[in-house]
């Protein structure tokens, strides 16, 4: 019974789902949540590098979708709209965190890891890099990128979105998106030189 009810929703496009939701169908909203919660979490987590904060941001994203459902019009793709909301909230969270850090540094007089700027040479190249460590290394380097480079490389290489969609999400021309992705990749391939060459061997 449940499957028969769910099947149409699973086949419905995102744009039709939000339209149904605008007409008062709460099941359409549930389907949107089901479709986007993990991919948005993945995007926000790679951006913030903190699972708890990322989950809060995704919760807030869905609340915003609920609250502002009538603000969506079919002019834009639904995925573009929801990614824009999540991206804006993630950037806000990043700024908030920076403010918090500034405050904690001034009060605690503590120094954080990022102040030491550990170079790649600090890691032993002979070290066997297991997948968990690989992930940690990559994530660490992604987090070192400035937000504007970080956002585009995650959207392109992790979420695998098209340049066109990324340009709509962050409201920047396609040419700029391409050049940002290129610069971010060049930076990462230098910083992760050891890892990337080791893999090759």
């Amino acid at each position: 019974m449940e499957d028969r009810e769910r099947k149409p929703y699973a086949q419905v496009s995102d744009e039709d789902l939000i339209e149904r939701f605008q007409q008062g169908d709460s099941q359409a909203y549930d389907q949107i949540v089901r479709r986007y919660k993990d991919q948005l979490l993945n995007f926000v987590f790679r951006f913030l590098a903190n699972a708890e904060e990322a989950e809060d941001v995704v919760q807030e994203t869905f609340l915003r979708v609920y609250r502002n459902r009538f603000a969506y019009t079919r002019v834009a793709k639904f995925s573009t709209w929801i990614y824009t909301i999540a991206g804006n909230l993630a950037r806000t969270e990043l700024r908030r965190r920076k403010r918090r850090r500034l405050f904690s540094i001034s009060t605690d007089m503590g120094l954080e890891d990022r102040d030491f700027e550990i170079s790649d040479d600090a890691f032993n190249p002979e070290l066997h890099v297991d997948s968990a460590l690989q992930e940690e290394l990559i994530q660490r380097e992604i987090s070192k990128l400035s937000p504007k480079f970080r956002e585009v490389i995650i959207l392109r290489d992790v979420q695998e979105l098209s340049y066109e969609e990324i340009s709509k999400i962050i409201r920047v021309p396609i040419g700029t998106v391409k050049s940002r992705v290129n610069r971010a990749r060049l930076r990462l391939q230098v910083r992760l030189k050891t890892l990337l060459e080791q893999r090759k061997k």
Partner: protein
Amino acid sequence: MNTCESFSESFSEYVENDVHPEQRKSLDAHLAQCPNCHAAVARLQNLRTHMRALPRMKTSPDFDTLLRASLMLERKRAHAIPFFSEFVRMPRAATYAFAGFVLLLAAAMLIRGGQGAEAFAKRAQHEELNVSSFYQPATNSSTSSEKIFFPLDKIRPASLHTQPDLNAMNERETRPDSVKESTTNSTGPQLKTTTF
């Protein structure tokens, strides 16, 4: 070195197979003779594979429960102020239009209110003169009914009269024909008799 830098600007497109055939030819030629750029391109290809292979995050098991709770609060909040919840549900353009209309209405009321007050003040001033000219003799008459220097008996309404002349009434009852006489002959406040 400069050529390496300029070539590096198209590395991403090269890796993604998104370059013009001519550009690809010149890049291939450069990569064949530049080991540094060749290695960089190889690392870029590898990087993309690594990025795609990063483990996909999943929401925690209580994600849906938390969201449902937040939505319930949201609904409660909306129901608490039904007017505003309806207002929020309106499309943005309609909301702005409504807000604009309210502002215009307020402005119009302010302007009209100002003019109205002025007009009222003028009217009041004018009426005040009339009122005082009408009531001044009446106040005088209430204090001393004998000192009548104004033919008030002709304009004063019956309700303003004090005690009716009982003698005159009795006279009228007993001798209805002589009412006119009695009224003219009776002393005291003459005003009262005219109304009967």
